[in-house]
């Protein structure tokens, strides 16, 4: 991109600029110039910081055009000019009825996709009436016990038109089976369904810790479901390989990038081993990243992610279908960056974070509500969050051109650095025996905990300013925004509804289907169709998970993974 002679000239010019700048360096506006991940940033970036840029094929190899390998500038040639990213707001609370109401509200306000949040018992594979669920029903998402709940959640929503994402992992196959059963009942052909299942168990062991079974059977559950969807639900994104939770747990941007891609490659290897064809399943894989506050670091992260993924898919895994090389991703603004103090400031944080995801070429976006450090979003807060995306899309002009920061000396240098750091982590993970061994031995968990503690220390020493928390604080601040409360009656209502279903369903058939599931799981057959059959019979999520627990056992975190730092 830059001829050697040109770079020589710049070098000379740089040293004279540097000499002049020295006069100003005795004063500093900030104690340290570093990213939110702790990376020091240069005062200035020039062509000299872009390694290898004098090579003839530099541009083609490293940057190239959008929609062309290695996709640094985006997966699509015309990006948002052709298709705006999906405004996909994550929602779910209390009963299926209330969640259905919120979904309809979001769609009525211009949301273009749905994303379902489930409560803790559902995420952990318990029914609302099990003792483990006491006090948790409907609290941080919607409660789902049987197909009947899923029917209510999607009542009046055209599943042939609206794409639906579901944030669930250990019981992901069960929730998808229920969703497919709803579609069958509504008469929507399965090949018309579009949506995404999070279904990323590896990051649960690493970061969010909502696991049920040990890793090996958990991965089997995933490859079974992938095999079913390839044949029957071809437009469905079977896994959303997630860095979001890794980042929320305290990782740096580079760790989020590296650990997430390492997880992705682990699924790819498992699917190949299960006999699936990479060029059939890979186009259905998608990713999910955090959009944190360090604007340029985030943009570099997304650009690096696309390039690394394309290279590995093409060169290491030998995928031939170009669609297998594309890293498509959803993003969500950083919940962990929000403050309980002066919560309205969170609107500003979220807007800037969302802008970074858009500048980084996201396919779909969730913007957090200002009140999420206090409770689940109120309707008003959720609306402002959605409006934030609409303002970015239609008022700021960022959709006008593709990869507007491509070619920025800083962004390109940072993108290269991200890629290098990720590759170093891949080598380290491989040296330690691969992703599953690293999980078992607590490598990821300890790395993340260490980064989280480091960040906290920087905040407490005021090396880092968090507005409203350690600086610009307000004495006797009163929180005066409305806060959503989940009705205590919700748990009782949900249990009553579940008991009614249990009394009305054909319990003989339920037992037959559960026995079949147990048989298949024991024999190592494909579990998905058996789960689908259980779901159609209104077997509960807890019943199905109990069957699988009885066959596979439960995962318990190794004390090595609990090390604080």
């Amino acid at each position: 991109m830059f001829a050697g002679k040109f770079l020589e000239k710049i070098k000379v010019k740089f040293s004279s600029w540097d000499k002049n700048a020295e006069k100003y360096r005795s004063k500093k506006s900030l104690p340290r110039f570093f990213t939110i991940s702790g990376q020091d940033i240069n005062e200035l970036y020039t062509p000299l910081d872009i390694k290898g840029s004098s090579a003839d094929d530099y541009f083609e190899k490293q940057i190239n055009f959008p929609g062309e390998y290695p996709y640094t500038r985006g997966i699509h040639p015309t990006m948002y000019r052709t298709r705006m990213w999906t405004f996909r707001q994550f929602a779910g609370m209390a009963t299926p009825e209330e969640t259905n109401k919120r979904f309809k509200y979001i769609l009525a306000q211009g949301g273009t996709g749905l994303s379902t949040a489930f409560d803790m018992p559902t995420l952990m594979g318990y029914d609302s009436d099990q003792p483990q669920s006491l006090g948790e029903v409907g609290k941080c998402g919607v409660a789902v016990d049987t197909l009947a709940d899923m029917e209510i959640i999607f009542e009046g929503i055209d599943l042939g038109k609206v794409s639906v994402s579901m944030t669930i992992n250990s019981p992901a196959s069960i929730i998808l089976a229920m969703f497919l059963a709803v579609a069958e009942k509504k008469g929507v052909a399965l090949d018309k369904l579009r949506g995404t299942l999070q279904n990323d168990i590896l990051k649960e062991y690493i970061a969010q810790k909502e696991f049920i079974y040990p890793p090996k059977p958990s991965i089997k559950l995933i490859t079974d479901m992938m095999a079913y969807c390839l044949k029957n639900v071809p437009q469905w994104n079977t896994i959303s390989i997630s860095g979001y939770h890794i980042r929320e747990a305290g990782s740096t941007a580079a760790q989020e990038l590296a650990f997430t891609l390492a997880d992705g490659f682990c699924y790819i290897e498992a699917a190949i081993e299960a006999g699936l064809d990479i060029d059939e399943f890979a186009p259905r894989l998608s990713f999910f990243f955090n959009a944190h506050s360090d604007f340029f670091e985030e943009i570099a992260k997304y650009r690096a992610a696309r390039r690394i993924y394309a290279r590995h898919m093409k060169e290491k895994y030998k995928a031939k279908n170009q669609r297998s090389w594309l890293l498509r991703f959803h993003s969500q603004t950083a919940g962990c960056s929000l403050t309980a103090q002066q919560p309205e400031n969170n609107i500003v944080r979220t807007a800037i974070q969302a802008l970074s995801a858009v500048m980084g070429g996201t396919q779909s976006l969730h913007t957090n509500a200002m009140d999420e450090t206090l409770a689940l979003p109120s309707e008003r807060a959720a609306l402002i969050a959605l409006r934030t995306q609409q303002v970015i899309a239609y008022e700021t002009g960022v959709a006008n051109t593709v990869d507007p920061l491509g070619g920025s000396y800083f962004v390109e240098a940072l993108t290269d650095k991200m890629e290098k750091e990720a590759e170093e982590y891949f080598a380290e993970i491989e040296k330690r025996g691969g992703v599953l061994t690293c999980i078992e031995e607590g490598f990821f968990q300890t790395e993340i905990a260490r980064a989280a503690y480091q960040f906290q220390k920087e905040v407490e020493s005021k090396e880092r300013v968090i507005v409203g928390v350690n600086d610009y604080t307000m004495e006797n601040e009163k929180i005066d925004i409305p806060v959503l409360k989940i009705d205590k009656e919700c748990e009782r209502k949900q249990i009553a509804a579940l008991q009614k279903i249990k009394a009305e369903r054909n319990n003989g058939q339920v037992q037959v289907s559960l026995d079949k599931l147990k048989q298949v799981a024991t024999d190592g057959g494909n579990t998905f169709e058996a789960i689908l059959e259980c779901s159609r019979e209104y077997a509960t999520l807890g019943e199905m998970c109990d069957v699988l627990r009885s066959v596979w056992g439960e995962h318990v975190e190794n004390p090595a993974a609990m090390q604080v730092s």
Partner: protein
Amino acid sequence: MEKKVRVLLAKPGLDGHDRGVKVIAAALRDAGMEVIYTGLRQTPQMIVDAAIQEDVDAIGVSILSGAHMTLFPAILAELKAKDATDIILFGGGIIPDDDKTELEKMGVAKIFTPGAPTEEAIKFLREAAGSRSPKE
């Protein structure tokens, strides 16, 4: 020499978000306290039994799932049942102000909410453990 403050940390309920509890564990440890982190999905009974067994001054629990109004009272009840109300119970998480007031009324010694510096927890524990009179 002053006796070291001993603290048991745990995550009750189904919630797996353990960033906060690990940060607190590291900060208390670096402040010279003895910290025992018992991990995820601990029942009130497991927590209280471990606290008695380990002879701790305080129990700290972290709850981000919204189940705090069920879990804190259950731990308090368990402490009462085991005649261990001298053990200080504190906690942190996504806990709205109204609930915080109610929990502190019930007998939770202190609730820390998002943004609270670890220094505050250290100071609180030093003072509370210092004025504590353990039952024999």
